[in-house]
């Protein structure tokens, strides 16, 4: 009798123990989720979502709420698919003072604004590794300009923009030794290392970028930033960590102080000092690369000077505001009155008031100085703290109803709270460990407040596994009701950091369909088959080639010799929407070309062997795309084979380029 009883008790104990074990979260999403994220075939999404590609170096374009991927825009990384960075025309885009840099790490997009609202002219992106800012034209979705930043060690707090896109900022994540004293011991950090903030002016007509001025700031790490808006227009706010000025094991050594800073910059004041001639021109070396849409060609220039201001000498440009524990996000609300600091190790969210900051400055309510810069008293600048919001706040976006949405990396959730009352209203888990988040129009004066999108750092079990390397992912939540509702997971390219979303109605009507042939000013363009030809200049052979459905002209080329450099300048003669042609040749050591209608692009090809080499169109352009092919003959160096070329000529017919 005793044994069965013991077994029974044991079974019961196991059952009870199992019942007590906490269950893994099983929440999926509401039953109406599918319909909310569903965009029927052939219908358009409501928003464009410009998402950073992180370590892919590119920017991706998705539709919301469907999460469908439309395009990967090559920005800081070369792209053999389109030939970006490989074609003779685009190599210059990736030039820097360090030479050609084929890769970077893009963290933050910023869509241009007018009066604090998204205007859809350009989207900017930052290069976190080799410090640069790119401007992408939203008519063509192509990178139009890349500007390198001197005196920067890593461009993280960038490319945030002022209300009317007057400036794009770039703050260095690494302070670095600068000027003549760069070969210094790393341990001399406090003495020799400086941080710099660059204010890049943007020409309102054509978007051309120029470093207007740099602010010399103490040697700390700048993390993120946001411009003021409305009443706080004229100010900029930067979060900074490592005010301990550690140079090793920052994980520990930069986490010692209870508070780091948010740096408030009065850029209107900086403009006054510049107008008064207080700026100092300092030698520097940095590249500026611009893409010309009429020549379809980029040019790179190295600039040698930059204008600097020293806020330790010139008072009232910058002020520090203490902010708990290594602040990361530093976000201004749509009214421009509130600045949300997110200490990534803090268990509360401080919200600062612009009015109070102004009063504190006027009343000199300072608690001291840091490297010669006044530090405003924490309480004097504070609107209030959001208590117990979660663990590890990172970033905050806003809706149009006075609510804020803060991402929490450690507790893996989005928390909704009221900006004025600081009351926590709702929280929803993310899968897993959210980094940035995005509300359409969220950083502007006019948020559209329909969705919040989580860009996660960990994906784990959310998708079918693909070996140790898994997809990256984002999640869309409906925020129209009181409770946030998960409606869709979608995979992303590269690791997504920040993203912005803009109504499709702003971008869609301006989207370019073709490049007009009559506006093509490429020096090697063949604007009709009659202009197709092959020219020899020393050991350079220039092929002026045309592509139209479904042939390349010329498609038979002879007289190329070993040791020659062959340049295929291919012009797509199509003037019809969505008819690109491609160009690839056997043994090319670089890439292929994708040439849009009306465009000219050049592939350099150096043959290493004699023989006959095929080339063909790579973009399935028509029913006879497979027939769109040709041959080039390579003869030994010193061979007597004459240069000749043709299309549609049988046997050795006479050369007729004037057809």
């Amino acid at each position: 009798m005793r044994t069965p009883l013991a077994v029974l008790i044991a079974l019961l104990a196991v059952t009870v123990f199992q019942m007590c074990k906490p269950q893994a979260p099983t929440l999926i999403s509401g039953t109406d989720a599918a319909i909310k994220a569903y965009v029927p075939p052939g219908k358009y999404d409501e928003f464009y979502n410009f998402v950073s590609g992180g370590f892919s170096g590119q920017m991706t374009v998705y539709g919301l709420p469907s999460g469908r991927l439309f395009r990967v825009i090559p920005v800081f990384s070369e792209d053999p698919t389109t030939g970006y960075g490989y074609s003779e025309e685009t190599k210059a885009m990736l030039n820097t003072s360090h030479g050609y840099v084929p890769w970077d790490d893009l963290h933050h997009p910023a869509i241009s604004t007018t009066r604090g609202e998204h205007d859809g002219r350009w989207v900017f992106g930052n290069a976190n590794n080799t410090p640069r800012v790119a401007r992408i034209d939203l008519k063509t979705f192509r990178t139009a300009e890349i500007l390198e930043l001197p005196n920067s060690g890593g461009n993280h707090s960038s490319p945030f923009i002022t209300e009317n896109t007057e400036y794009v900022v770039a703050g260095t994540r690494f302070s670095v030794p600068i000027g003549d004293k760069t070969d210094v011991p790393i341990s001399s950090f406090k003495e020799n290392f400086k941080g710099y903030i660059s204010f890049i002016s943007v020409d309102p007509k054509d978007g051309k970028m120029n470093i207007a001025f740099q602010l010399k700031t103490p040697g700390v790490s700048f993390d993120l930033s946001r411009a003021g808006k409305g009443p706080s227009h004229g100010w900029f706010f930067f979060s900074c960590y490592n005010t301990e000025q550690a140079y090793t094991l920052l994980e520990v050594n930069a986490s010692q102080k209870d508070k780091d800073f948010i740096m408030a910059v009065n850029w209107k004041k900086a403009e006054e000092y510049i107008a008064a001639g207080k700026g100092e021109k300092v030698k520097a070396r940095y590249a500026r690369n611009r893409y010309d849409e009429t020549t379809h060609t980029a040019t790179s220039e190295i600039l040698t000077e930059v204008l600097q201001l020293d806020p330790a000498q010139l008072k009232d440009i910058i002020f520090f505001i203490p902010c708990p524990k290594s602040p990361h996000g530093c976000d201004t609300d749509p009214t421009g009155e509130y600045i949300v600091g997110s200490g990534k190790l803090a268990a509360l969210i401080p919200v600062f008031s612009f009015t109070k900051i102004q009063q504190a400055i006027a009343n000199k309510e300072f608690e001291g100085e840091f490297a010669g810069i006044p530090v405003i008293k924490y309480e004097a600048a504070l609107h209030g703290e959001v208590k117990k919001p979660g663990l590890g706040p990172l970033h905050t976006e806003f809706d149009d109803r006075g609510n804020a949405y803060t991402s929490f990396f450690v507790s893996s959730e989005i928390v909704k709270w009221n900006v004025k009352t600081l009351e926590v209203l709702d929280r929803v888990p993310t899968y897993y460990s959210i980094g940035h988040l995005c509300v359409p129009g969220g950083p502007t004066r006019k948020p559209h407040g329909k969705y919040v999108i989580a860009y996660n750092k960990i994906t784990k079990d959310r998708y079918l596994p693909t070996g140790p390397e898994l997809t990256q992912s984002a999640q869309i939540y409906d925020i129209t009701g009181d409770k946030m509702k998960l409606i869709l997971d979608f995979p992303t390219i590269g690791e997504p950091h920040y993203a912005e979303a803009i109504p499709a109605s702003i971008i869609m009507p301006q989207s370019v369909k073709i490049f007009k042939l009559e506006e093509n000013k490429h020096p090697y363009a063949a604007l009709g088959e009659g202009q197709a030809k092959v020219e020899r200049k020393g050991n350079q052979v220039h092929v002026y080639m045309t592509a139209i459905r479904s042939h390349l002209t010329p498609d038979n080329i002879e007289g190329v010799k070993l040791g020659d450099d062959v340049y295929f300048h291919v012009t797509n003669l199509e003037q019809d929407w969505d008819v690109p042609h491609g160009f690839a040749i056997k043994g090319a050591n670089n890439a292929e070309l994708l040439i849009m209608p009306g465009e000219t692009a050049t592939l350099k090809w150096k043959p290493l062997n004699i023989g006959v080499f095929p080339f063909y169109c790579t973009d399935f352009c028509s029913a006879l795309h497979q027939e769109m092919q040709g041959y080039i003959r390579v003869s030994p160096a010193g061979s007597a084979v004459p240069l000749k070329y043709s299309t549609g000529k049988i046997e050795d017919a006479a050369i007729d380029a004037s057809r």
Partner: protein
Amino acid sequence: MVSAYFVPLWQILMWAPQYPEGLEMKIWINTLTGDVKIISALNHYIGMKHIEVAMFPEFGYMIYIVGAIIGTGLVAAWWGTRMGLWTFLLLLLLTGVSALVDFYLWGYDYGHNLDPTAAITIPGMSYQPPLIGTKQLLNFTAFSGPDIGGWIFITATALVAATLLYEHFIRKQKP
């Protein structure tokens, strides 16, 4: 009718699975507009000629014909007799019919006189565009019909005819 100089007279519209937005060709008094180059680029696969303004001598003299018609109309109005109006109607109808015949003949040649070396040849297939109305040509649905200018001409002709009918049947019966 003077507006014929400023608006297209005839239109040809085409749709295909790859062209849901459609392609159009507008025929004016002295020129062609629209997606003519794209249509030509597509049609070369089946050996159709490249459509150019120069291949239509009509564009050289149509302005004079229309001018003469308008002149006749003005003379008829000034003359103010039924005879004048009859002449004008006859002229309008004759012009309309000969324009359609001319268009048909061109369409027949364009659709039948194909390049024998064309990439796509389908035995027995011809691609004559519809004279008026809709027709399926391979993957394209083609429509041909009057444009604004054409409708103005048709309306004018109808008005002249209506006036004459009114004069003939109703006014006559009145004492």
